[in-house]
């Protein structure tokens, strides 16, 4: 079964991925359990604006919905 893949011209390298991993985890803890969702939605909106590509955002959205 083919799965929608987030298609990206410049992927994170390992070091970059690790940095994002730690930063996001720390920020979720900083936001606290009551504000985690709000924080993540704000982050998604900021990323969508930076991406400036609604169709690519749709593909990322579908990828994130998989295997929940």
């Amino acid at each position, binding site marked *: 079964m083919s799965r929608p893949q987030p298609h990206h011209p410049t992927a994170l390298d390992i070091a970059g991925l690790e940095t994002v991993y730690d930063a996001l985890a720390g920020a979720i803890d900083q936001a606290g359990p009551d504000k985690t969702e*709000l924080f993540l939605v*704000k982050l998604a909106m900021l990323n969508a604006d930076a991406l400036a590509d609604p169709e690519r955002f749709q593909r990322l959205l579908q990828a994130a919905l998989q295997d929940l």
Partner: protein
Amino acid sequence: MHQPSTEARPSIYYHYQVFQPWLPTEHPAPTRQQVVIAGAGPAGLVTALELARLGVPSLVLESELQVSQGSRAIVFTRRSMEILQQVGVAERISANGLPWRFGNSYYRGQRVFRMEAPHEPDDRFFPMINIQQQYLEQYLIEACQASPLIELRWGNKLVQVAQQPGSACLTVDTPAGPYQLDTAWLVAADGARSGIRSALGLQMEGASYEGFFVIADIRIDLPLPTERLAYFDPDWNRGNTILMHREPHGIWRVDYQLPAGETPEDALRPESLKQRIDAQLAMIGHAGAPWVMDWCSVYSARTLTLPDFVHGRVIFTGDAAHMLPIFGVRGANTAFQDAQSLAWHLAFVLKGLAGEALLANHSAERVGAAREIIDEAGKSTRFMAPPSRGFRLLRDAVLSLSLSQPFVRPLYHWRTSRPHEYSASRLNSPGDDNALFMAGPAHGAPPRNVRLAANDFLLDHLGGGFDLLVFSDAPALPQPLLQVVADNRARGVPLRITAIGARGPVAGADQVLADADGHCRRRYGVPATGAAYLLRPDQHVCARWLTLDATRLQAALNTALPQ
């Protein structure tokens, strides 16, 4: 027996006149009517006035003996004023209303969005004007009373409709008992809770949103300009939205969303109203300011429309045809466009100038408009009153981001009511030069107003039938063109020729606008002499030519009046 209240409604600023009911016992047996309009609200009254302008008599039935309870619709758009100008009441609204063009959205004490509606020298009317619906209805009623073609029967409640081929038989209840009335057409302008719609068992399509809003009109002295104020998620009403509008006579509309689960009955208890209005006043820096309540009500947002406005001999219009959320001032403002459209389509069918296909066109155009509005208003509603957890999260994220991130702020825009463009209308002429114009209003678009001189605008000169705008500097119009106009007038088509751009008189034109500086020609994208626009009786464009000739004018009229 129908017994409407004879007590004047209470109000601290409006003096209600209680009219005498029309009683069948005091009149000879009714004759068959061409048009009966059920409901003397904005939609019904504008329909009657526009029909009268086109020479069609109508009978308006109103179950009550007085105008609307409370201010209800208070914000009227520029296009509404242009329509109301056509029926003769815009001047009175301008004289007594409060015009405005700015809207402000606040979150956590910060103004996060300011809407500035454009207002150009070419516009006679402001983008918005605030006046209470009682005044609007009063002006329309007085205009109806001045028309020999309109009869308004107070205290007459339509209780039954029996459709037959070619007519509808109405049972009308009055304080002296019921009577029967035959009519060729019934216009159902009986509002959002239309009894006619229920009786016909018609289903509306669309969505209803959970959550109630309180509308409260208070008299209070607030030193604030006439601008729309919207407050999101304030401390006193977490997660919910509050709107404020200034109205004439020192009245302010305060409109706030109720917490989930609260009933309208609880929300309208005086102590609940007082606590919340005081909290809102405190939040905007006017704690303890004295105020008096005039009227309050509760509503919920709906985006519903009938999929067809014409059912046999019954035509639905205004709120009876669709229920639209008030965010974006879409109720009465949509009703005026419905009524203006309905009146000319129906008048031309009644006069035998077009077949009933024209009524199908009315329905198609206005259902299309309602669906467009539902699409736009749905976006506003989902932001103002999020219908699900996901929408609430997104809205809250946008509120939070808006304090520092400008890119999300346009989401605060509430998409004000605007005229629908009938771009795909079957009445648009396929053989004209529409696609060759580089500017100006295109097929189906409403007209563009043009300032001609001080207190003199293009739209002041148009309406009441088809308008042919001929942009020419020639001293006479071509004879073949005049022959087509004469032939159409002879069969009863109201058609006026306005010559634009000539220095002196123009033989064959009904009126001449000099347009010395060429401004009108530029607004209509006219590159050279000989161009023309054909406007329908609702002023929307149905044909335009870079070079008009008699054959193509007749073709356009044939298309606009299908048999």
